[in-house]
């Protein structure tokens, strides 16, 4: 399955110009600053906005020169920034709204390839999944309530469930956490991570928050001024030093690994990834559990010799791959290869010069902080 998106359209004061082949699995983040066109792109894919171009999902054409499938005939789920629940309906009524209509609608052509083993949430009627989705989002106790009796986080969880219950073949999420405060955000993120693990359908996730993207995305499309400026697997794109979007303090990489050791004594877990292992605070995951860690560039320093008398737990042999300028002229970004995995370190040009760093140099990466992000 693949999603082919090509839009070229001039709006007043803004032009959208994208040509993308998005993966048919996992979470793809559409990432960029506000005004970069990411929400417009998402709305065009949903058919809520008209742009000249071509859009096909899995070979089914949703839009080209002769075709425009209206939004209500596209097998999508859409989660808006604010929950947009219908205020005149209870939570149950809101969930039923899309579910009943999706079941009544003529079934959409079956997914080609059938990737995803025995489970196929993509085109099965939603009815069977009702309990599962309710449990997944933890809204079982809210069904009789009206939306104005819900908290912001609960509303958004209901909105996500409502979208999933239409058995969409593509889930579109437009900054679903942006309207929430930090506490609500942290309340919803675990649910989104569970979705990520359990859903078989592709998700397009619009966000301008690097931490959300780091936690949830598998792929990333970086947007700027209505254009795509970088795209690819998240792990690769984040380790690029020429990323046109400056992330500032959020510059850093993510690594996918598994729990290989748990130290009950010190409440630590050792995460193995291709190229080494790092110690993190134990997140309670079982041995062998797949996890993702995030390492910010500001938390990585470089030493020529291994440091044994240091408070830093994670000190790994590495090879300098690339050195580039950071936003401030005093700072440099250094890409280090730990086996096949890359981390980025931020240091001053003075330090880089003092250590004689050059591509190919053998060094030690001292990682001061590793965040376990699910």
């Amino acid at each position, binding site marked *: 399955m693949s999603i082919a998106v090509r839009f070229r359209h001039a709006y007043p004061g803004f032009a959208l110009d994208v040509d993308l082949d998005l993966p048919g699995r996992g979470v793809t983040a559409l990432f960029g600053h506000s005004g970069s066109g990411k929400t417009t792109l998402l709305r065009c894919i949903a058919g809520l906005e008209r742009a000249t171009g071509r859009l096909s999902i899995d070979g089914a054409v949703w839009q080209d020169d002769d075709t425009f499938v209206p939004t209500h005939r596209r097998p999508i789920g*859409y989660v808006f920034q604010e929950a*947009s629940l*219908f205020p*005149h309906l209870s939570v149950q009524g809101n969930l039923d709204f899309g579910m009943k*209509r999706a079941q009544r*609608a003529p079934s959409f052509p079956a997914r080609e390839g059938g990737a995803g083993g025995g489970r196929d949430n993509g085109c099965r009627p939603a009815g069977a999944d009702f309990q599962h989705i309710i449990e997944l989002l933890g809204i079982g106790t809210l069904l009789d309530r009206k939306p104005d009796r819900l908290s912001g986080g609960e509303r958004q969880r209901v909105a996500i469930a*409502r979208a999933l219950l*239409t058995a969409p073949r593509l889930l579109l999420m437009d900054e679903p956490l942006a309207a929430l405060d930090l506490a609500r955000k942290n309340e919803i993120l675990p649910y989104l991570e569970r979705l990520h693990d359990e859903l078989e359908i592709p998700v397009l996730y619009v966000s301008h928050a690097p931490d959300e993207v780091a936690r949830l995305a598998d792929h990333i499309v970086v947007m700027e001024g209505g254009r795509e400026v970088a795209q690819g697997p998240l792990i690769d794109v984040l380790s690029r030093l020429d990323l046109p979007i400056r992330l500032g303090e959020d510059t850093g990489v993510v690594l996918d690994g598994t729990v290989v050791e748990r130290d009950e004594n010190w409440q630590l877990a050792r995460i193995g990834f291709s190229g080494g292992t790092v110690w993190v605070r134990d997140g309670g995951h079982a041995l062998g559990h797949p996890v993702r860690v995030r390492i910010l560039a500001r938390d990585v320093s470089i030493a020529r010799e291994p440091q044994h008398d240091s408070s830093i737990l994670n000190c790994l042999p590495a090879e300098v791959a690339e050195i580039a300028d950071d936003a401030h002229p005093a700072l440099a970004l250094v890409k280090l290869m730990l086996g096949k995995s890359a981390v980025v370190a931020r240091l001053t040009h003075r330090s880089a010069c003092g250590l004689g760093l050059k591509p190919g140099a053998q060094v030690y990466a001292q990682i001061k902080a590793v965040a376990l992000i699910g």
Partner: protein
Amino acid sequence: MHASDLAAIWLTLKLAGLTTVLLLLIGTPIAWWLARTRHWAKGPVGAVVTLPLVLPPAVLGFYLLVLMGPDGPVGQFTQSLGLGLLPFSFAGLVVASVIYSMPFVVQPLLQAFEAIGERPLEAAATLRASPWDTFFSVVVPLARPGFITASVLGFAHTVGEFGVVLMIGGNIPGKTQVLSMAIYNHVEALEYAPAHWLAGGMLVFSFVVLLVLGTFKPALRKP
């Protein structure tokens, strides 16, 4: 109470009821179009629909009389259909009332539709609801207070009609003689007692209408 007074009350209720139903049927699509469109005709159409609000009833009645009379285009049309002429008939009163009370139905509906905004419609579309489906399952329930206000105002305004009726319907008992006409006749004949009964009844009716509207207003403001 005179039999003619009862007939006038019944005629008035019949006229107001029929007018309100017709206005909801006609006014809803007009208000929906006005709320949604970006067409250049939005301004002119909106003004025409609101015109009866500011126009003296006598002026409106005069033009309707001319239009629907034997030499007017509408009159010629109804005659060619074999329907005869509308002035001085109950049907003529209904047509005139629909035009006269139009803004009182369209305005509350327009405001209610505009207050709904784009988002619920978009949400409904992403949940597989067609535009018609969305209108009946989302717009109508959300605009319910607007529909109530529109119905009450349209009905009450038609009940209070005088000038237009005078111009177009005359004063035929049992056929076009409405309540306000009956009051006028009683006062002309110096029969103050029946005039009091009818006028007092109207006063109570109007008060109740405003009371009912007042209890629904808070619902309008609720998100």
